[in-house]
């Protein structure tokens, strides 16, 4: 049991380090295409963390929806909005905005870390039970049936809206 715990911790920290470094590259790289490819690594890492949290169905959905669909949408968006002048030099705001954003992000991170370390200091996971997909689906189709139906209508509205907006007429 201890060996499993150590393995889980090692996996967590390795994946977390890769995710944080890739996320930093997403927001600092000058090349839009590279940012999308770094984002792939972050999203895959999030899926791996879901598996560590014994949430298999969410992990598989993450891979299917994010890596399979959303990244492709981003790549299409990059392809269709590429300017001739090259977008490397104007990916970021200049001057004081950058410093202000850095200060704001660091301050928020410090505040949240303090609150989390203070509030959940000794919260340890119990025995991690793998949540079966059947339980997730039972919950969606009983307790959360109404939000689920609303979500389907929202997806339909987004589909029609995106087609109407992007259509050439």
């Amino acid at each position, binding site marked *: 049991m201890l060996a499993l715990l150590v393995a889980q911790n090692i996996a*967590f920290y390795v994946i977390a380090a890769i995710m*944080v470094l890739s996320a930093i590259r997403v927001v600092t790289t000058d090349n*839009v295409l590279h940012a999308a490819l770094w984002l792939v690594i972050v999203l895959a890492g999030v899926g791996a963390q879901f598996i560590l949290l014994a949430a298999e169905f969410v992990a598989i959905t993450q891979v299917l929806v994010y890596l399979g669909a959303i990244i492709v949408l981003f790549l299409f968006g990059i392809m269709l909005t590429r300017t001739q002048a090259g977008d490397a030099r104007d990916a970021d705001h200049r001057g004081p905005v950058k410093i202000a*954003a850095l200060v704001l992000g660091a301050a928020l991170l410090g505040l949240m870390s303090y609150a989390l370390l203070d509030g959940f200091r000794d*919260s340890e996971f119990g025995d991690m039970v793998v*949540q079966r997909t059947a339980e*997730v689906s039972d919950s969606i189709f009983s*307790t959360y049936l109404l939000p689920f139906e609303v979500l389907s209508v929202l997806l339909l*509205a987004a589909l029609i809206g995106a087609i109407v907006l992007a259509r050439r007429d």
Partner: protein
Amino acid sequence: MFLNQFLILAAVLFCIGLYGVLVRRNAVLVLMSIELILNSVNINLVAFGAWWSVDGANVSGQVFALFVIAVAAAEVGVGLALVLLIFRNRKSIAVDELDALKG
């Protein structure tokens, strides 16, 4: 494993995403940073769900994470359509040039 590991990882990702939203000029890059923020929230939801379900019978956190994933997919679809429309009309997707309503 401690709950705090996942919560602080999510906080770090959230702040990186916030920095990206504030500092990026390219609208597609702003949308990517928003994806970082949404994913950090998902980590929080699933971690709290796993922490809360001591008897192994509570999947609410996962269900909410799934809902967030679906809403994020809809958001990216409409967002990229808007970006495409802006690019078609103005030949640029720099967010600071969209100041037609500035007084």
